[in-house]
């Protein structure tokens, strides 16, 4: 029995003239939350479809639970799409019963905030509780590997805290979890990240490992709009931040060359979002 629940080796997929995924290798171990982070069109969906066995890679290999994806490996997978895959005009209990019957298991019990809401229509639930229901449904057959697509997007602060507690609990109980997202707050919840850009994995590691060596220059010009125009013309990536300007992944020399040598600059560690933009090569 391997502790690697899922593994891809150099998988690639081309659609006509678009190389959607280009030689990506990942592995997910039991008890681990791996974040697959990428911009729109970076190849996240194609990658997931290959991992789930819904699409065959042109090159490379996918192994799920130590074997190539088949119908039987599907039973050990749970998937929560962004739309959650729930029936809005059925109640919470009816939705959970339905999913449980498909897998031939007993429906999960309702605990915490969902207790007492079994007879509520899913359409009448606030988004946070709807996502909790979707998550319970995806977990009902006790899958070994869970794939979650932006699991907390659009949810308020309490709902988000509660959802992440549930997701981490599932990982602590031994499930492997793959989260696909472009929200940095979700990426920061993961044990490890793989950054995808134009189909390639451009960085991987823990948040700390990815941020190592990623620097951003900050300045507070008297006239931010004028300074932004000059930096734009110099082709430097500028992020307006309140009254400040932040420039990820550039040298102080290049900023001084554009704005003059006496400009006051500070340099600090990049935020994850800034690092992601620098690593993906565009701002």
């Amino acid at each position: 029995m391997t502790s690697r629940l899922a593994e891809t080796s150099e998988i690639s997929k081309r659609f006509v003239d678009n190389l959607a995924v280009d030689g990506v290798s990942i592995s997910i171990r039991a008890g681990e939350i791996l974040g697959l982070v990428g911009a729109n069109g970076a190849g996240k969906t194609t990658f997931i479809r290959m991992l789930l066995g819904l699409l065959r890679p042109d090159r490379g290999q996918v192994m799920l639970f130590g074997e190539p994806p088949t119908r039987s490996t599907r039973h050990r997978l749970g998937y929560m799409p962004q739309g959650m895959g729930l029936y809005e005009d059925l109640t919470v209990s009816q939705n959970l019963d339905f999913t449980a019957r498909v897998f031939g298991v007993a429906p999960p019990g309702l605990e915490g905030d969902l207790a007492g809401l079994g007879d509520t229509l899913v359409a009448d639930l606030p988004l946070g509780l709807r996502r909790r229901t979707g998550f319970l449904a995806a977990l009902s057959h006790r899958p070994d590997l869970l794939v979650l697509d932006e699991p907390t997007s659009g949810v308020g602060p309490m709902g988000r805290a509660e959802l992440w507690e549930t997701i981490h609990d599932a990982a602590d109980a031994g499930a492997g979890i793959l989260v696909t997202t472009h929200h940095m707050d979700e990426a920061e919840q993961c044990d490890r990240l793989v950054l995808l850009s134009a189909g390639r994995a451009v960085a991987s590691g823990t948040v700390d490992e990815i941020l190592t060596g990623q620097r951003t220059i900050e300045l507070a010009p008297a006239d931010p709009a004028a300074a932004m125009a000059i930096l734009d013309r110099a082709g430097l990536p500028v992020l307006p931040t309140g009254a400040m300007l932040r420039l990820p992944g550039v040298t102080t020399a290049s900023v001084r060359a554009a704005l003059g040598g006496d400009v006051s600059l500070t340099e600090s560690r990049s935020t994850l979002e800034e690092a992601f933009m620098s690593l993906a090569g565009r701002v």
Partner: protein
Amino acid sequence: MTFGLTGVTVEIGGKTAIEAVDLEVEPGAITAVIGADGAGKTTTSRTLVGLLSPTAGTVSRPNRAAIGYQPEAAGTWRDLTVSENLSFVARAHGLAAASARYRELLEVTGLGSAAERLAGELSGGMRQKLAVAMAMLPRPELTVLDEPTTGLDPMSRAEVWRLLARAAGEGTAVLATTSYLNEAERASHVVVLDAGKVLIAGTALSIRGSFRGLLGTTTIRPGEAPAWRRGNQWRVWAPDGPLPQGARRAEPDLEDVVTAAAFARREAS
């Protein structure tokens, strides 16, 4: 002058959509209204521009012709080209169709090479930039954009915020709503809405500074204290007292401050 809402409550269909909301939108600055789905962001925008009437409170806004408004996920005509979308807005405001302003906006949005493409064929990021450019075109005194960055990836979001900063740089008072808390850093003033009420407001800096008590990190779930997960650790909040044993002191970030405020509100209710 400064625009905004003072003590504004709006009821829709007998339900309170927003309650006692205060917010200011200053010329030359960006106010971000941040909240989850259903928190009241759209009601706030629509009330500020005059499409909804408050049940209580007062609204300060310029006259209609001086307001640029982009509703959520709309604002461009998909069957018109980029150029036609911009010219239409120009003519509706009595401006020349292909003015210097039109050319300037095509350039700053990077849409110049896509001028003859249908808006419906643009990527989500490009279409949102077009929508912002359309709101900016007549140089309104107040620009209100409802979720201009929703669904966009970090690069496209950064480009939209650069446009908003440019609009503010031209002297416009800009209000943008978003569900991404990390976009708070891009705005000069932030109002976080939760279930129709202001949860916390200020600059990103003053919000971080408003954190009460101590924040710690631990690797095991602390007993009774309010706590939330952050990666493989717990964040534990001690509003009034010392941290639980074994917890290491940590600096709260915006996410922590907002989560703690949500915990405090739940305690109080």
